[in-house]
């Protein structure tokens, strides 16, 4: 089973790298970008075939290491 995890900064947390991307796109002539936020994408190959157990385990991984919940949100997709 594969877990695909997105880690993003919480709303209200300043994202200077996202801001820089937004400005760069604007400078390149892409006028249609209202805002950019940068995050992380993590892919895990899991041994587990039990979806519920995997979900619980990956959630724990996110809370304990993959995301810093002081500043970040995460979302998990299993397939």
């Amino acid at each position, binding site marked *: 089973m594969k877990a695909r995890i997105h880690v993003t900064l919480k709303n209200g947390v300043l994202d*200077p790298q996202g801001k820089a991307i937004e400005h760069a796109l604007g400078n390149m002539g892409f006028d249609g970008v209202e805002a950019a936020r940068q995050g992380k994408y993590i892919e895990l190959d899991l041994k587990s075939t039990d979806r519920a157990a995997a979900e619980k385990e990956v959630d724990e991984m996110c809370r304990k290491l993959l995301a*810093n919940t002081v*500043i970040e949100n995460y979302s998990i997709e299993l397939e």
Partner: protein
Amino acid sequence: MKSAVIVFPGSNCDRDMAVALEKITGQKPIMVWHQEYDFDKVDFIALPGGFSYGDYLRCGAMSARSHIMKEVIKRAEAGVPTFGVCNGFQILTETGLLPGALMRNAGLHFVCKDVKMTVENADTMFTNAYAAGEEITIPVAHHDGNYFADTDTLDRMEGEGQVAFRYAEDINGAQRRIAGITNAKGNVLGMMPHPERMIEPALGGSDGRKLFESVMNRLG
């Protein structure tokens, strides 16, 4: 005063810290590798600056989960004075021993210079040799020193005197110009500036010296 410096792969201020501790306390600290599980009983634990684990995932994230940190957390929670500088501060927030997080500098640049800051609370075990409101100059060298915590946490910390040091001017976007904080109990201090690099005139100043002297005063 017996002290320990915890060394991670990628620490690069561990020797500066060891030199400062030896010169000021008169005792050579023990150097403890991150893969250890235990170390001698000490009066003071220092987490040095650097780029442990190459700053992978988030600064300090990997180190905070290393073997030795389980022991450091246990001792810090039991009241042993624990001091993190720069990457050490990042590690302390990642363990949860200190509130908040350290994010990429708002200006995106690595900031490396001497900065002025004020001693906000001179009653802590790390700052009692300073005067309240004293302005001191200490070098910073970091890319991720932009301190963040939510407003409630910031208000609570300010109210309880947990803000130990504040930059005189904004250098990295840190909320309320926070340069260093303690935990609620006051035995854990994390700060981005490097007092261990300012302990004698030959280094450009000795404003960092009093921090170590404060701990010695308190420990007697």
